[in-house]
């Protein structure tokens, strides 16, 4: 549904009580209750995925650790799908808003459990191993994908959006209600993760260095996992799995201004918000009137970067 930029600006100004609008009431409604929450959700989810991608790469000491690749998003989506499938049992008495919160918390716990599991499994002799981490991710993705598929298949079709939604991601489900539920889950990590930036810098030179330098490695690890899976989990619960943002954004941010986490952590939130908003716009406009799943767009941008990092590191180890 095409709406001119003039209409958008007028409608927004009008809703703030600035001046009158010539836009049609239908268009006003579309802008205020469909498009605007979608943009806000894109910003929140982008910031969440960007910042948590950076933090998780920091703690795994690996530029390829990405929530959707190593199964964290899949863990979140599995939990979210389970909750929706058993909705009647679990929160029939709750209001819609509380239901969204419940969903976000469920996805958060799914993401957190998966992150802990992958972290423990990916360590061999106390050292993090890239291949084990990626393999664990593949296994968890496959398992969660299969279970998600099973639950989706068994559940009442009316209740569930298609499995594509969970596997490819979409911002199409944005309403002011779920956006407002997402907000605290993104805000808390946005405040908390920058406080852990120094610890993440030390992780880059080895977990034992953190303690020798006078900081507590376990506290840093636990908070990074809690805060970043909080952001990822809640994002997945409203928008499904949007891949590669957590890989792409930290990489772009490091190219902009170096690898110090005191810079990369906050800036990757901004970059994530920017890139995901643009990706969503592209996904809506490129093959009008059909809407591409946003995961297709982010994968098209992110997968080449993933390959590039793999090839670069392979060359480095040969030299």
């Amino acid at each position, binding site marked *: 549904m095409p709406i001119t930029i003039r209409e958008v600006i007028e409608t927004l100004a009008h809703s703030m009580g600035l001046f009158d609008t010539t836009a049609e009431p239908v268009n006003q409604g579309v802008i205020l209750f469909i498009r605007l929450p979608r943009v806000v959700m894109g910003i929140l989810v982008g910031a969440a995925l960007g910042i948590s991608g950076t933090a998780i790469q920091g703690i795994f000491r690996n530029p390829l650790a990405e929530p959707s690749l190593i199964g964290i998003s899949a863990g979140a989506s599995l939990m979210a799908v389970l909750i929706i499938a058993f909705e009647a049992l679990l929160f029939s008495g709750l209001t819609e808003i509380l239901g969204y919160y419940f969903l976000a918390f469920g996805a958060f716990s799914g993401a957190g459990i998966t992150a802990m599991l992958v972290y423990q499994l990916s360590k061999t002799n106390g050292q993090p191993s890239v291949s084990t981490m990626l393999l664990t991710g593949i296994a968890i993705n496959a398992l969660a994908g299969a279970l998600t598929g099973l639950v989706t298949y068994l559940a009442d079709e009316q209740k569930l959006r298609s499995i594509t939604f969970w596997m490819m991601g979409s911002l199409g489900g944005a309403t002011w209600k779920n956006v407002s539920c997402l907000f605290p889950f993104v805000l808390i990590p946005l405040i908390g993760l920058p406080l852990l930036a120094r610890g993440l810098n030390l992780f880059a030179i080895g977990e034992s260095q953190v303690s020798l*330098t006078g900081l507590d490695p376990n506290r840093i690890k636990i908070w990074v996992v809690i805060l970043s899976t909080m952001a990822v989990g809640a994002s997945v619960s409203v928008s499904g799995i949007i891949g590669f943002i957590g890989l792409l954004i930290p990489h772009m941010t490091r190219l902009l201004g*170096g690898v110090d986490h005191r810079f990369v952590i906050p800036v990757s939130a901004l970059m994530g918000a920017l890139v995901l908003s643009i990706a969503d716009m592209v996904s809506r406009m490129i093959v009008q009137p059909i809407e591409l799943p946003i995961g297709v767009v982010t994968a098209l941008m992110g997968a080449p970067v993933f390959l590039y990092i793999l090839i670069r590191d392979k060359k480095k180890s040969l030299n």
Partner: protein
Amino acid sequence: MLRVESISYKLNNRPLLKDISFSIRAGEMVALLGSNGAGKSTLMKVLSGEQKPDSGRIILHGENLQHYKRKALALKRAYLQQHNPISMAFTVKEVVMMGRYGVGNPSAPELDLVALTETLEVCGLTDLAERSMLSLSGGEQQRVHLARVLCQLWNNKEALLLLDEPTNNMDLQFQHQTLAIAAALAKKGYMVIVVLHEVNLAAQYASRIIILKDGRKWWDGTPAEVLTPQHMYTAFGIHAQAYTDQRSLKTIIVPQEIRLDAGEFNSNLSIQHQIPHTNFKTSSTDQNETINLLSVQA
């Protein structure tokens, strides 16, 4: 002052350290020598507080090491590990500054900058400050990590500095410069314990040498006392001569070369392809000729 009281340490029921005791005063630079697997790195880990001894105590400045809070301990000891892999393109300045993370005073960040500048200067890294770690050679990287641990102890004289093979990957000049830095800090009042493989570096820079063998302290004394042919044979299984350098009056150890005959190696191949059999055995040379500038120690 560091007092090590009869510490023992086991890993998977295998004793790695047995009943080790010694103490170190402020201003001493102690070199820890011993063959591979003698327990040098394990002892360093225990002294750093990273591993707890199974029995015995370590008293640092009058307090049991195990009772220190993490931050208080970081102020009083720093530990340069043997391997310091780094995967991200941090700059030299950023890595050195990491030493201040746990010990810096947030209300006086200018002190951290002074510490950074002075440490870079002492370690000769001022010109490399903005370079990425990934663009440096292994020896340069190791020196940056040395700077990082020095930066941690910057304003704490009498602190304990543990260096586990700090000269790894370094060329000759870097090796000497690194140990000269450590010796200079010891003169300032730091307690330095350094693990070395090169016996002569220990003889030149350390004021005291401890030799470990099979997890026990075997000898402890000045370089001249400890570095004797008999001790070299017991500790490392090599024949060596000990000399005194006429100019510096320091002990120098010259190991005798080990001669091997490659024997059967490659012999089948040479029969099949009729390549003449080669023998790696070299002719013997007179050891004394090569060191005629030095007088033989009694």
